[in-house]
């Protein structure tokens, strides 16, 4: 349950969310806009899973733009601990304070109370997220990279929006942050964490949506070329590749082709094949997609 007296900014009507996201440069499907609306309504974090490159991180960025608030991003990695995610004491200042009061006759208890006060606290992303006056978007990126212990101390933050510091006490959220967690599924997350979150699985966009994304991000591009690129990438994803191309790669490729002045991909099969380096990122994949394969796929691009 969210703490009383910690309001979240007024929720945007559900129908408006998709439109606002599109304005912010993110083309969302209906399920995602429902999930984002529920996030505000229920004050629950949203867990987004999906392959690398489907635009999970972009969701959080777009959400911050939609609400016009700050985005606090925390990249998870193995060995991430409380002192780099939550808070840390400012040791230099603490040492200085101890030295300065050495001969003042203050008791141990007094000094301790002083050096473990808010002045000596350094905030890290998670603490920062709950101490803002206006609720920010907190992005906990690739949570599967952190270890299980980290998940455990996320739980308090995600369900009660508070942080307990042993020397200091409990800090409650001033404004409830909108929390987005992303995971690539390299590790199974705990049930406890999953249960606290809303869940959304982000898949690669279908051809039309991907074409829309290309058009949005590369305003100068020809509509038919965008559609061709989207179709081509869609087919390449069905090939047995080691590293499936993400949306960022699609955008790179579209920009490359547009930059080279290609108008119809079928007219320039060699150029298409040569520029595939923008989306095929391993040696094996490069070898697998031969000029003949490119030809064959281009034949299917209407």
């Amino acid at each position, binding site marked *: 349950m969210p703490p009383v007296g910690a309001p979240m900014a007024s929720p945007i009507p559900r129908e408006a969310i998709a439109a606002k996201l599109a304005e912010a440069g993110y083309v969302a499907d209906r399920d995602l806009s429902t999930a984002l609306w529920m996030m505000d309504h229920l004050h629950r974090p949203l867990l987004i899973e999906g392959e690398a490159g489907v635009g999970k991180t972009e969701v959080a960025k777009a959400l911050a733009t939609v609400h016009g608030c700050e985005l606090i991003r925390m990249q998870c990695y193995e060995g991430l601990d409380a002192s780099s995610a939550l808070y840390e004491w400012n040791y230099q200042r603490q040492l200085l304070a101890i030295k300065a009061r050495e001969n003042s006759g203050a008791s141990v208890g007094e000094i301790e109370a002083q050096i473990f006060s808010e002045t000596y606290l350094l905030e890290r992303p998670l603490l920062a997220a709950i101490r803002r006056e206006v609720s920010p978007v907190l992005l906990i990126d690739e949570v599967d990279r952190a270890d299980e212990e980290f998940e455990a101390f996320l739980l308090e933050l995600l369900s009660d929006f508070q942080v307990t510091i042993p020397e200091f006490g409990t800090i409650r959220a001033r404004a409830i942050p909108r929390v987005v967690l992303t995971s690539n599924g390299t590790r199974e997350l705990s049930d406890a964490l999953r249960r606290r979150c*809303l869940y959304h699985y982000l898949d690669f966009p279908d051809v039309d949506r991907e074409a829309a994304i290309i058009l949005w991000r590369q305003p100068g591009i020809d509509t038919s070329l965008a559609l061709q690129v989207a179709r081509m990438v869609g087919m390449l994803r069905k090939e047995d590749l080691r590293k499936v191309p993400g949306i960022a790669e699609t955008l790179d490729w579209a920009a490359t082709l547009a930059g080279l002045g290609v108008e119809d991909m079928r007219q320039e099969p060699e150029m298409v094949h040569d520029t595939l380096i923008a989306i095929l990122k391993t040696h094996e994949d490069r070898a697998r997609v031969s000029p003949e394969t490119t030809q064959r796929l281009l034949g299917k691009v209407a």
Partner: protein
Amino acid sequence: MNALACIGDAPGPGPAMRKRLAGFAQTLRGASFAIGHAELQDAARILATPLAERPERLRAALKALFSSRHSDLARFDELFDAFWRGRGAKRANRITAQGLASRSPRKFEAGPGPEHRQGGLPETADAPSLDDGSAGGRGRKGGASAHESISTKDIRALGAEKDRAEALVLAERLARRMRARLTRRERARRTGRRLDLRSTIRHSVAHGGEPIELKFRRRKPKPLRLVVLLDASGSMEPYTAFFTRFVHAVSLSFRESEAFLFHTRLAHVSSALRERDPSRALDRLALMAQGVGGGTKIGECLATFNRWHARRVIHSRTCVMILSDGYDTGAPELLEAAMRDLRRRCKRIVWLNPLLGADAYEPSARGMRAALPFVDLFAPAHDIDSLAALEPYLARI
């Protein structure tokens, strides 16, 4: 807890609707969805919003709330339609049964019914000897001398019910001992590399600010993760019961382990093995492992493993243990490619072959020969002693 009571006095829907919702939650729990008190209250709040006016919207909303993994999403729609719209109720029942058998049913259709017992894990599920196993593993069986006599016997020769029960207990003990060795090794390190400023300062207050007691921190050693791939094909049948028990014990005592079972297809069985009670675990396993046809497709199964599971279950301190006799009916090239791929991903590959114990055995099977260059340790596993001999090797990884 009564689901209806959970919803309590949440604002919104009337009593009839709440009852329906509670019933729906029960159905989902039956299909192994993780739904707690807070989720139900939130669901009640959703019913009070405009989302509840249209079934598709309500479905999308409840789906985001109640699902917690990708495999839940696919099952949710059918369960929702069956419950709220009375459509396809029979299919939903089947889905519920699947959910019980496995949290993540992949390609395996695990329907209920006794006929599944005949495949994959014959007799193991029904063997009466397993019933006393869990208690026995905690050391109720005594007398080291008794173990001595069995531990050198070939597993196939453990015909008598009593012998086999003891062998299974030994397997459990072995798995536990392997873990104990690993944890002791971690504890032995006392000092660290980095100074822990936080606790040093904390302790310095007592000395008037002089940091006399230095506190260190050290990297927490990563526990070894064991991924076991167990061959459950026909040719392995004499050993399957024993190995299954061994794998079960490993799953319970290792902090991190994953288990897979393969014959002509690969099944992820970790969730079944996490069941404490051995007979229940084996029941679930038998359900998941059915569908044995002729032959073993090791190469194909390993390729499936590499493609769908390896990324998630293998990390920097992972040992992959393959328990198989190496009789592969697939193409040896496929096995070779799959082994090469696996080699690249993980730190150690151990291949235990029960046939290796026989004096005259040479690894001449085509598949076995193709796989050997990529194996770090190729060891016999025909008796308990040979398994025990692995222990120091695993501790060194």
